[in-house]
């Protein structure tokens, strides 16, 4: 099993008060955790890579905990989530796919068995590549007020033999959400969709 080698970490938090409309009574908070790791498979085609998902699990949990802490410490305040990966140019998109299980299940575990699938995206890119990480409600994917996205990136990463792993959490709806659809208050919570 390859070891997870971390070069750097970046935590960012946004606190949104308004977007031209009424100032929110409780500002929307959105946080991202990014970790730059060495890609153990960079530079050649490796058939069997699944094992690395297991190695990434502790890192996923650490990043999910760091996000909850950055948002104030209470997992109950987290309402939206998403994940993503940027693979450096000596790697494959399939290496980014290794993040689905450890990243997603870590957040669901830390948030108390969240039911909805964790929205995700990934790409191959160079240093400074930006990734728009999609965000949806943690218990019901169809909650329209919580469809959101957060742009992430790091100036000097990923280098060719690196992967940037991303997790995102938010504390609520878009700041001026008003396009109808399923509301968070109407969630049945049975299938993770509605």
């Amino acid at each position: 099993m390859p070891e997870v080698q971390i070069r750097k970490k970046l935590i960012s938090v946004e606190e949104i008060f308004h977007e031209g409309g009424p100032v929110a009574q409780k500002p929307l908070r959105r946080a991202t955790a990014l970790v730059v790791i060495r890609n153990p498979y960079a530079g050649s085609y490796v058939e069997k890579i699944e094992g690395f998902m297991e190695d990434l699990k502790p890192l996923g949990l650490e990043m999910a905990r760091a996000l909850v802490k950055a948002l104030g410490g209470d997992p109950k305040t987290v309402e939206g989530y998403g994940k993503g990966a940027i693979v450096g140019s000596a790697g494959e998109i399939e290496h980014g796919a290794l993040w689905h299980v450890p990243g997603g299940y870590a957040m669901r575990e830390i948030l108390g068995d969240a039911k909805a699938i964790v929205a995700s995206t990934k790409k191959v890119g160079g240093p400074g590549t930006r990734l728009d990480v999609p965000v949806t409600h943690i218990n019901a994917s169809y909650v329209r007020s919580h469809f959101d996205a957060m742009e992430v990136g790091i100036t000097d990463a990923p280098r060719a033999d690196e992967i940037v792993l991303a997790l995102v959490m938010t504390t609520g709806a878009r700041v001026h959400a008003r396009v109808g659809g399923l509301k968070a208050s109407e969630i049945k919570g049975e299938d993770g969709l509605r």
Partner: protein
Amino acid sequence: MTSHSNPDSASGSRLKIRKIATFVEETRTEMGQKVDPPTRRAAAVAVIENPYAGQFVEDLSELMTIGETLGELLTQRAVAALGIAGPTAESYGKAAAVGENGELEHAAAILHPKLGTPVRRVLGKGAALIPSSKKRGGPGVALDIPLGHKDAAFVRSHFDGMEVRINDAPRANEIMVAIAVTDSGRPLARVGGLTKEQIKGEDGLR
């Protein structure tokens, strides 16, 4: 960091904050070498309405007052994000990006006359000039905040820069204001010059 009230309401000026973002970066290895302890730096960025967007106004004193308020708020946010006490900070820097309907001089009014005093109050000392940069640009523009040691500008290990950006800012009538604070210099600094141990701290230079 955990404040849930809009900071504008506390001040009497026309300061209108749309959002505040903080970034904390920790470097653990560089070229396979361990960075121990890891270098850490934080930036706090406010996106505010530009009260003078779209017009030429001779007297920019209102923006100077806004700079004073943001100097305190953003330095406190950056220090809180690092989880350190203000006086243990090592380097600092400031920058602003003005949206397309504003002037570069609006950034100057925020950054230069009054912003520094509250920054130094929060950090305890700060004899050195606070390095700065400014630009005009659209949403997503990258702001490179220069960094230098807060007590002696010539400390070579602490010459650095931190890039920040927010994809939806600055809008045409907005200004992005950023303050960066670190608890360390560059990872694996080794190009000589004045070290932090040699600081005399009398003139802000050495």
